[in-house]
C-alpha cells in the first residue's frame, strides 16, 4: 500500500483529459451539424407540390390536411395545406411517401412556443417557413437540389401591410 496512489491515479485521469478537446457544444452560439435526414421539422415547398395528398395518407397521426380543387388542365390547385406540429411525431414517413419531394425534413428544431396553438401551421405559415429556409441555405433544398429563385408566385406569399 502506497499512500497517495489513488490520488495520483485521479490526477493522471484529469491530466489526460486536459489534453483532449472540449466536448461541450455552446448551443445558442454554436450548433452541431445535423445529418441530412435527421428528424427535424418538416419543410413544405409549394412550388414542388402537386396536391396528390400522398403525404396526408401516409401520416400515422393524421396531422397533415390537404384540400385541393382541379384546374382546367387536370392538375390540382392546393387550396389548403396545413400541418399540426403539436401532433406531428417527426417520423418522416410523409417525406418518404412524397413522389416529388415537396415535403422534406431539415427545418428548424428550435420552434418552442408559449402558446401551443402557434404550432399549427397553415399554408401561408408553411410558405413563409420554406422561404426562410431557402433564404438561409442559399436556395438549396434539403435534398441538395438547387431551387430556382422566386419560384413562389407573389400571390402565394403572405401580404405584409
Amino acid at each position, binding site marked *: 500500500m502506497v499512500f497517495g496512489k489513488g490520488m495520483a491515479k485521479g490526477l493522471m485521469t484529469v491530466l489526460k483529459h486536459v489534453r483532449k478537446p472540449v466536448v461541450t457544444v455552446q*448551443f445558442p452560439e454554436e450548433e452541431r451539424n445535423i445529418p441530412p435526414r435527421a428528424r427535424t421539422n418538416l419543410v413544405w415547398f409549394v412550388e414542388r407540390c402537386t396536391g396528390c395528398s400522398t403525404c396526408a395518407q401516409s401520416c400515422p*397521426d393524421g396531422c397533415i390536411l390537404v384540400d385541393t380543387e382541379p384546374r382546367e388542365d387536370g392538375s390540382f390547385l392546393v387550396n389548403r395545406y396545413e400541418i399540426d406540429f*403539436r*401532433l*406531428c*411525431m417527426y417520423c418522416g414517413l410523409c417525406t418518404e411517401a412524397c413522389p416529388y419531394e415537396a415535403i422534406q425534413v431539415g427545418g428548424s428544431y428550435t420552434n*418552442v*412556443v*408559449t402558446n*401551443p396553438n402557434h404550432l399549427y401551421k397553415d399554408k401561408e405559415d408553411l410558405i413563409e417557413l420554406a422561404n426562410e429556409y431557402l433564404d438561409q441555405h442559399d436556395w438549396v433544398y434539403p435534398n441538395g437540389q438547387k431551387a430556382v429563385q422566386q419560384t413562389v408566385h407573389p400571390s402565394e406569399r403572405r401580404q405584409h401591410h
Partner: protein
Amino acid sequence: MVFPTIDTGGAPIPLLDPVTDVEEELRSQLLVSTVDKVFGWARRSSLWPAMFGLACCAIEMIATANARYDLARFGAEVFRASPRQADLMIVAGTVTWKMAPPVRRIYLQMAEPKWVISMGSCSNIGGPFAHGYSTLPGVNNVVPVDVYVPGCPPRPESLLAGLMLLQQVIDDEHAHNGRKRRPEPTGDFSKMLPEGDPIRAELESLFPPFLSADGQPRDRFTGALPHDQNFYSSR
C-alpha cells in the same frame, strides 16, 4: 363540472401591486421593481428541474444534462429528486391517465415560484396517442404549462431553446409588475373520463376546492388528507 376560480380557504392572500397599492408619495422611494428584477435574474439563472421523466423524452432530457449539451451552462444542472427543492417541472413524455394524479401531486408539492415545461408531442397534446383511451390529451389539462417544446422526442437543442424561452418569460414577468399568481389549468375531465371513475375522482380532489371523494378537505399544497385523530386511539 365547474371549478371555482381561486380557493381562498377563508382568508384571501393579498397580492401587493407596487404601482397601484402604494401611496403616491411613497412610489418614487420604492425599490420594489428593481429588487424584483434581481429576483427574476436569480430565479431564471438557477432553475432546478425536478428529477421526473415519464417516457422516451426523459432520455433526451438526460442527454441534455450530460457534458455535450451541458444544462449546467444555464444554471439548471441540479436535477432534484425531491419536488420540494425543484423550481421547474419538465414533463418529459406520455402522461397516461394513471400517471396524471401523480403529475398533479408533484406539481402541487413543488414550492413557489415554479414553472412547467411540456416536452414533446405527447405531453403537448397527446402526440400519436392523442385519440387513444389511455392518454391525457395534453398535460395542460392537469398543470399550467409555461413553455411547449415540440418534437418526438425533441433534440437536446430544442429543450435548451425551451429553457432559454422560459428564462425570457421569467425575465418578462419580473420586469412588468412582478410575478403573477399561477393560473389553474382547465381540468375539465367530464368529456374524457366517465362519472364515478376512480382516477377522475382522485384528479378532482387535487383541484380546488381540494375535497376528497367523501367530502374531506385535502391539504391544498400537498393534496394530503388531514391527519385522522382517531387513528392511533382506535388501535
